[in-house]
């Protein structure tokens, strides 16, 4: 498109370093975003393989391919990697880092060096976790929640792994700090708050959650390490402590953390729908404010993870009520998305197909969340596969599908190349099918009483587990098609123009891939996003 006077992209223009150093020492938000994406998806694949092995173990009752101890280690490491190394940094540090300055017409993030530092913290944390798997007492076997008292007593390498997660927490806080300051300070002239793209709004809310929640995780993990090293006894009833305090502290962070995972995913979905329905977004302000209200009410619901742990009835009722309240803004978003598509001229390209899959899976996850959030039913399903199913519908069906949608949507911008559409559509359909075959049976297994985290099960649960394991293979096939298509297209894809989808936000006004400082001239904004020619 801009063929004749195409500018040098940020890949070509050097930064004083060569080779790998031009990446790991770069303060360019685009390079850091790609560093994050590359490292996150590498870890993602490791965790996927662990997940597949676990499913394979569960294909039939009794031991199949591993011991119970290694199963415990596997679901712990699967959880730790997926949560702390993939899905929490996921969209904000990867796509957010890359797209935020482009979407608000800035040259970089507010603190480029802190941005790079956060990636280094991330990598150091990751390396510490990897080291913890092979040294000391072996990989941790506590589950990703590190619940006391077991996490204090177990001989496995919990201290080191927890230290790694602590470093990841610092990385996440720094990212949040950068996101919020950038949005406050670096918007292009004329880009008022209510002219910002909604992905930016969601990153803004996410940034605040990262700033306000992550320190609590920090101190929780610090306490756990101290407890193992010095034996303070804060969580040990024999010495006057209380193990419930650990659960409280842990969930004060970890419930808001699910919004670090899901809010930016919602932001991506909100970007994609107007572009492929050729209609402006329905309820712009409602979506913006629902992000903020999710972020704020989300602080007050952590107790719903502890309904069966021992709490007064009053507090349980309040936590349950607030949990229902926090579902409302998510519902508002879903209705807005659907209303935005209504009577649009919809083009079902791969980004939109992923998005629609997201809406379906997210709604299923959300509705089952209400079953879990209600006190009476929670007691019934709390310790079962129902939770596992709900969680994966939210995190994989929700966040990861939106992540894939975003990757397909912004792929031409990031790499300047276009992927092949047919395999992309196929991969989405295969992923969607595999996902449901894998996780839907878990709802039923859960209702029938299959307990979670178990290595073995009664023969009457066999059918469900078998179907689920087959689903995991379909899902893996879908992932393979998708990544093959994408990686191949990075190298030999057709050249994409600067705006292949006809998007109306600022990132589409610069060339693909963008030049070193994003814009030759800082754009001046005169109207809100999502204005399309009739």
């Amino acid at each position, binding site marked *: 498109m801009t063929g004749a006077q195409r500018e040098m992209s940020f890949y070509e223009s050097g930064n004083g370093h060569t080779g790998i150093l031009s990446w790991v020492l770069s303060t360019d938000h685009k390079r850091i975003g790609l560093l994050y994406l590359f490292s996150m998806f590498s870890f993602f694949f490791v965790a996927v393989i662990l997940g597949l092995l676990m499913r394979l173990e569960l294909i039939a009752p009794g031991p199949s391919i591993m011991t119970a101890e290694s199963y415990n280690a596997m679901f712990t490491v699967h959880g730790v990697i997926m949560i702390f190394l993939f899905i929490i940094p996921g969209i904000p540090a990867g796509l957010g880092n890359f797209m935020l300055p482009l979407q608000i*017409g*800035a*040259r970089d993030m*507010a*603190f480029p060096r*802190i941005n790079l530092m956060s990636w280094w913290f991330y990598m150091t944390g990751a390396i510490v976790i990897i080291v913890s798997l092979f040294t000391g007492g072996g990989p941790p076997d506590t589950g990703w929640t590190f619940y006391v008292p077991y996490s204090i007593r177990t001989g496995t390498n919990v201290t080191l792994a927890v230290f790694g997660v602590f470093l990841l927490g610092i990385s996440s*806080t720094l990212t949040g*700090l*950068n996101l*919020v*300051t950038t949005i*406050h*300070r*670096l918007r*292009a*002239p*004329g880009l*008022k708050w209510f002219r910002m793209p909604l992905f930016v709004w969601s990153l803004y809310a996410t940034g605040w959650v990262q*700033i*306000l929640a*992550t*320190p*609590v995780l*920090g*101190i*929780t993990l*610090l*306490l756990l390490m*101290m407890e193992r090293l*010095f*034996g*303070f*006894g*804060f969580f040990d009833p024999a*010495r*006057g*402590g*209380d193990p419930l*305090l650990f659960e409280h*502290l842990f969930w*004060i962070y970890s419930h808001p953390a699910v919004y670090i995972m899901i809010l930016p995913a919602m932001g991506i979905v909100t970007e994609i729908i107007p572009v492929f329905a050729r209609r402006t977004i329905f309820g712009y302000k409602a979506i913006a404010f629902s992000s903020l209200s999710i972020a704020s009410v989300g602080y007050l619901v952590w107790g719903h993870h502890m309904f069966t742990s021992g709490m007064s009835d009053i507090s349980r009722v309040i936590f349950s009520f607030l949990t229902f309240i926090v579902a409302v803004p998510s519902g508002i978003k879903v209705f807005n998305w659907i209303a935005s598509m209504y009577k649009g001229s919809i083009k079902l390209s791969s980004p939109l197909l992923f998005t629609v899959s997201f809406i379906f899976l997210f709604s299923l996850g959300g509705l089952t969340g209400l079953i879990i959030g209600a006190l009476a039913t929670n007691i019934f399903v709390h310790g079962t596969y129902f939770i596992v199913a709900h969680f994966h519908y939210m995190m994989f069906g929700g966040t990861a599908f939106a992540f894939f949608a975003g990757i397909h949507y912004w792929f031409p911008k990031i790499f300047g190349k276009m992927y092949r559409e047919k395999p992309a559509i196929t991969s989405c359909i295969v992923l969607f099918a595999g996902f449901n075959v894998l996780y839907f049976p878990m709802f039923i297994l859960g209702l029938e009483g299959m307990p979670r985290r178990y290595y073995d099960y009664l023969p009457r649960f066999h059918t469900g587990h078998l179907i689920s394991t087959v689903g995991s293979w379909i899902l893996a096939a879908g992932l393979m098609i998708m990544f093959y298509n994408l990686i191949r297209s990075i190298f030999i894809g057709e050249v994409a123009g600067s705006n292949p989808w006809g998007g109306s936000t600022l990132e589409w006004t610069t060339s693909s891939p963008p030049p070193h400082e994003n814009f030759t001239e*800082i754009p001046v904004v005169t109207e809100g996003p999502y204005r399309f020619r009739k």
Partner: protein
Amino acid sequence: MNKEHSLNKKTDYTGSKQGMWMFLFTELLLFTGMFLLYSVFRSRYQQEFHAASSELSRTIGTLNTVILLTSSLTMALSVNAIRKDKNKISLIFQGLTVFFGLFFLANKFFEWSAKIHHGIYPNSPGLLAHGKGETMFYGLYYLMTGIHGLHVLAGIVLLLIMMVLTKKGSLNSDSFVRLENSGLYWHLVDVIWVYLFPVFYLIS
């Protein structure tokens, strides 16, 4: 709307300050977690907390409070001096702040070693024999003053870097936001101590 835009400037003063304030907030939240533990255990072991608190030396506690408050004054004076282009004087005040910080840590060191000498430290048989309430009190005492001490140490290192930068002239009346941010950090550490002091030393 936005008078002079921050987009093309090299350093964004307001942006740096804003980032620093948010960072301070995360530090505050880190301590909030510990204060949460403190309030739970204090309400559970009222009597024991009173008894244990009376065994801490109020003299050293008060002395340390005075030292830190004074250090905040010298810190503020150093920022004030650099604003007025008096780099030498700023450097002296920074040095004084570092000195007070070290003085504080030295006191803390003697206080801790006396207690440890008496067999009072986490997981010690001496402490466990005192019962649950005192175990929790001293656990919190070591945890919170310990982590606070680490923050003082971090502040000292930060200020030493600032001293080098001032000496080199890269901190001056045109660009002093890094010193100002270090000052903010120092004040925060100070403010946290202002809360730690009464909850440990003055509740008996």
